């Protein structure tokens, strides 16, 4: 009797963008196993050429709806580096607060709406609205709080309209920051409730480990669990390297069986995202975030890619709790109205920030009038594609006897755990495809 497995998931659901999973196996022998990305290319790096420096973040924010703040900030940092534009300490803190809001929004969306249905054995969050009404309401409440936070600083939740090279067009008032602080106290409580619920289904997280290189930003002065500052660090090396050397990290390469460009640093692939940040910076998390990590036995050095979703949950608590302290600091010093001054000049600069799904690089070159003459962007999901493929190759032989439905679910859950954001299509798009 032959035992054929034929999995062809065309456009995996509950992820941002389009990806396919293909597995053909016969009597336990894998004939084909691929993670494919057929997203339509959008050519952002070509489109920004000829645009003024102050318009760049408007355009590249549209690379991704769910990481629009992150793309705006990466671009703005790159522009400021290219033109030696300094920003005030106040601007810096408020940007980090805005960036935290996006981490929370994106993570809650991923944990609650995209990943959780798998833990509960349903196809979407819709059936959970009747079976787990209170939990869904708490998730929605946390999601709304994150969006209101992002909207307060960014001008609206998606595609921020207050970020400019040099500073903000407008910042919230002290009263608004105080109100935000009160809301965040409630959000921390809501996140604890969500963590308690996820803990009851944590046995649905597959126990799979593969020794992996993790890459994330690391900030030493002062030591911070960073999303915005710092150098590029890896679990394979003690020294971090400066952001302007990011090409030495991504090392695009083409794999033999396809025209796909993947990234690698010290090994054939590396991973970025919440688990990478955790594995590099865990000791710097807030107290409550550490408690949540303990609930799930998440420890530094964890190599289970499915645990990325739990690392996101830990980060949710961290950003909410840390934001409360940062607002205290802002209010103690008192908010100042600051003029945004930026003078365009020729130059080239890179900027790196942590998107919710991993490290993101932007680089631009400008002429004397501040007109963009060249651009290069490398998004986190493209840095994860090779690692997803390597995980597939190690996982499938371990579960090959489990039957088609179980294998399919575990592969889909693995892709979802990386929280891919595939519509961020740029030049490093994985172009592997099957006729």
């Amino acid at each position, binding site marked *: 009797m032959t035992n054929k497995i034929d999995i062809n998931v065309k456009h995996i659901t509950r992820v941002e963008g389009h990806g396919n999973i293909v597995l053909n196996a016969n009597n336990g022998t894998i004939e084909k196993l691929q993670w494919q990305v057929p997203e339509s290319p959008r050519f952002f790096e070509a489109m920004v050429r000829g645009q003024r420096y102050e318009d760049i973040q408007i*355009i590249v924010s549209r690379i991704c709806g769910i990481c629009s703040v992150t793309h705006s900030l990466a671009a703005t940092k790159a522009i400021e580096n290219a033109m030696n534009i300094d920003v005030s300490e106040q601007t810096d803190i408020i940007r980090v607060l805005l960036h935290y809001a996006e981490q929370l929004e994106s993570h809650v969306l991923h944990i609650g709406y995209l990943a959780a249905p798998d833990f509960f054995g349903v196809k979407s969050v819709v059936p959970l609205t009747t079976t787990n009404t209170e939990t869904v309401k708490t998730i929605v409440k946390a999601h709304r709080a994150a969006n209101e936070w992002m909207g307060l600083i960014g001008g609206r939740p998606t595609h921020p309209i207050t970020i400019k090279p040099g500073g903000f067009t407008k910042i919230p008032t002290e009263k608004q920051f105080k109100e935000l602080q009160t809301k965040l106290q409630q959000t921390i409580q809501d996140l604890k409730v969500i963590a308690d619920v996820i803990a009851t289904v944590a046995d649905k997280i597959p126990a799979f480990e593969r020794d992996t290189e993790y890459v994330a930003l690391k900030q030493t002065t002062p030591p911070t669990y960073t999303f915005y500052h710092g150098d590029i660090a890896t679990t394979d090396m003690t020294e971090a390297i400066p952001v302007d050397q990011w090409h030495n990290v991504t090392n695009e390469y083409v794999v033999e069986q396809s025209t796909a460009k993947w990234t690698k640093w010290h090994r054939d692939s590396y991973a970025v995202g919440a688990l990478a940040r955790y594995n590099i910076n865990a000791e710097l998390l807030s107290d409550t975030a550490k408690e949540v990590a303990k609930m799930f036995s998440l420890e530094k050095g964890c190599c289970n890619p499915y645990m990325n979703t739990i690392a996101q949950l830990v980060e949710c608590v961290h950003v909410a709790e840390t934001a409360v302290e940062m607002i205290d600091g802002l209010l103690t010093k008192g908010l100042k109205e600051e003029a945004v001054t930026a003078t365009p000049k020729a130059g080239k600069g890179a900027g790196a920030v942590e998107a919710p799904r991993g490290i993101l690089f932007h680089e631009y070159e400008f002429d004397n009038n501040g007109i963009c003459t060249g651009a290069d962007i490398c998004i986190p999901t493209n840095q994860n594609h090779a690692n997803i493929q390597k995980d597939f190759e190690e996982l499938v032989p371990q579960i090959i006897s489990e039957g088609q439905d179980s294998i399919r679910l575990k592969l889909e859950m693995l892709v979802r755990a990386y929280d891919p954001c595939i519509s961020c299509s740029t030049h490093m798009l994985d172009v592997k495809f099957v006729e």
Partner: protein
Amino acid sequence: MNKPRVAIFDFSCCEGCQLQIVNLEEELLNLIGAVEMVEWREAMSEQSDEYDVAIIEGSITRAEDEERLKKIRRRAKVLIALGACATIGGINKIKNNFDLNEVTEYVYGDNAANKIVQTIPTKAVDEVVKVDYKVHGCPIHREEFISILCSILIGKKPEIPEYPVCVECKAKGNPCLWDYGQVCLGPIIRAGCGARCPTAGFRCFGCRGYIDDPNINAAKDVIERYGLSIEMLKSKMTLFGTGQEPNND
């Protein structure tokens, strides 16, 4: 009465407009109760070939996408274009200002000849199929989306503003950004967004597209009075204005 079957489809875009539907938060739960969501890849695993209302996000950038869109149109009683990529081609249309072979080579280098990265000039949805209703903006304004969808579901014509962003901006009592040297496109862009960008101190960059019959000449007079140039105004319009001409008959 059966609940209307609603499906959401995404083409080339950032998926930020779908995100605004998720961002309806508690109201999304009401929406899910009022309609039958039959396909929404970003949020659900179910798929369907039968629907009353098809919501299309994104613009058309590949030949095969045109075929997929036509197939959806044939099955849908009502088709809604969601967001600037769908209504006017959006940011994706900036590409059309360049030679497409050069664009592909710039971004993909040695892999530019690969079939999967081939592209056609970006099209808005109504350049391929008939569109019944448009929800403007980049991203869409979620309150406006709900209001348009509810109107459609009860058989009423949705109210879509035919006046410029300046009207909403003045009503909010904002200072004019032109007084601060910003080239704001408010006078010629369709309102309905609540003038969110100028309210946040950021010029309008035209994501909702031109209003019908904009007073372009008045805008020219004013911009000259402010010592700014028409060239700069035009350069601001290329963010969301590629391939569009104001209907000034």
